[in-house]
């Protein structure tokens, strides 16, 4: 065995995966080659030191942050979660079309003049059905529609023709539950 063959089979040699005959040849080469002997000794010393490195531990707030992140997980199964990137892409694309369509419809429906007080008090929820009873988009226009715990309640209403929040109600069969 020469140095090149020894290096090529170095990993098998370390893990004891060489055949008995090759094992003997490798040991004979090590006995005769100071360079490979030094190489092998350096490796073992280095790995031993690597395995002896002090383990790193989680920081003090690791558990708190993990809990916080898990609690922020959406309660409903998402289309993206069930179908991966392709599902996410499809959902975003569909959402984009629906939101654009909604804005067009609302632009036609809402006059340019400011709404009167009576109009403003009308429940401002608009539900659009895709027709296939698959995706429902609900656009909420006032704080009345937002639950108290909604994290976005502090945000100001961006404008009469802008969807503030879009919610997807996905049939259970899509989510796999």
């Amino acid at each position, binding site marked *: 065995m020469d140095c090149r063959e020894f290096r090529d089979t170095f*990993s098998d040699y370390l893990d004891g995966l060489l055949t008995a005959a090759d094992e003997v040849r490798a040991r004979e080469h090590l006995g005769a080659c100071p360079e490979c002997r030094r190489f092998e000794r*350096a*490796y073992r010393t280095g790995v031993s030191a*690597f395995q002896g490195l002090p383990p790193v*531990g989680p920081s003090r*707030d*690791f558990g708190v942050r993990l809990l916080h992140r898990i609690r922020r*997980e959406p309660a409903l199964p998402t289309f993206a979660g069930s179908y991966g990137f392709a599902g996410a892409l499809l959902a975003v694309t569909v959402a984009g079309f629906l939101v654009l369509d909604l804005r067009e419809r609302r632009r036609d429906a809402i006059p340019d003049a400011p709404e009167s007080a009576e109009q403003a008090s009308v429940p401002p929820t608009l539900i659009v059905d895709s027709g296939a009873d698959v995706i429902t988009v609900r656009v909420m226009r006032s704080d009345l529609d937002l639950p108290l715990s909604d994290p976005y309640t502090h945000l100001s209403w961006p404008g009469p023709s802008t969807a503030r929040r879009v919610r997807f109600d996905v049939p259970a069969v899509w989510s796999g539950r």
Partner: protein
Amino acid sequence: MGTALKTSTQGTDRSLVRSYDGLDDSAVVRACIDGDNRAFTELVLRYQTRLLNFVYRSIGDHERAEDLVQEAFIRVHRHLGRFDQSKKFSTWIYTIASNLAKNELRNRSRNPLVLFQAGKTNWEADHRPLQFEDFRSRPDDLYRQRFLRELVEASVAQLPGHHRVVFVLRELEGKSYEEIAEITGCNLGTVKSRLNRARNSFASIIAPHLD
């Protein structure tokens, strides 16, 4: 599956969780799927340090490693119901962590300004961690140990990312070739080839400094 994760001053505290000592991973996973909220905490306790060390040694950035390990646990929490219970949980969670580490390394290769933290060797004396040093050792032994640690960390940091992950899984985590193949999504031949290259590179880097 709820979130009954208990926390303490250092990561997640085992004393706050019902004892699962006699149960193997698959039993804890089953309990978790069956709605035992504390079982997930037990899984976190069992794997947080191991995963953190694996990811940290793979990417070299402690803070980022914590983020990635958290992400791994979140994915476990999210998809545990779909976990194939005929397989090893440890392999599954390591696969998730390995993929996250791999993505991190790939993103870094696109942004070369992010450096491998473990590659730094210019420790100031006051900033060196002292808690693991043996005070019975002689000063020259202490110096040698510290030198060796820094040298090893720097040497591992110099390995290419896909070699480093295999190297860490084998030498630090003690995973079998088959497990490494499953975790990294490579075939056995690729794992063997990468491991041999990683070991040769590691020895070549470290040998000149040990004479």
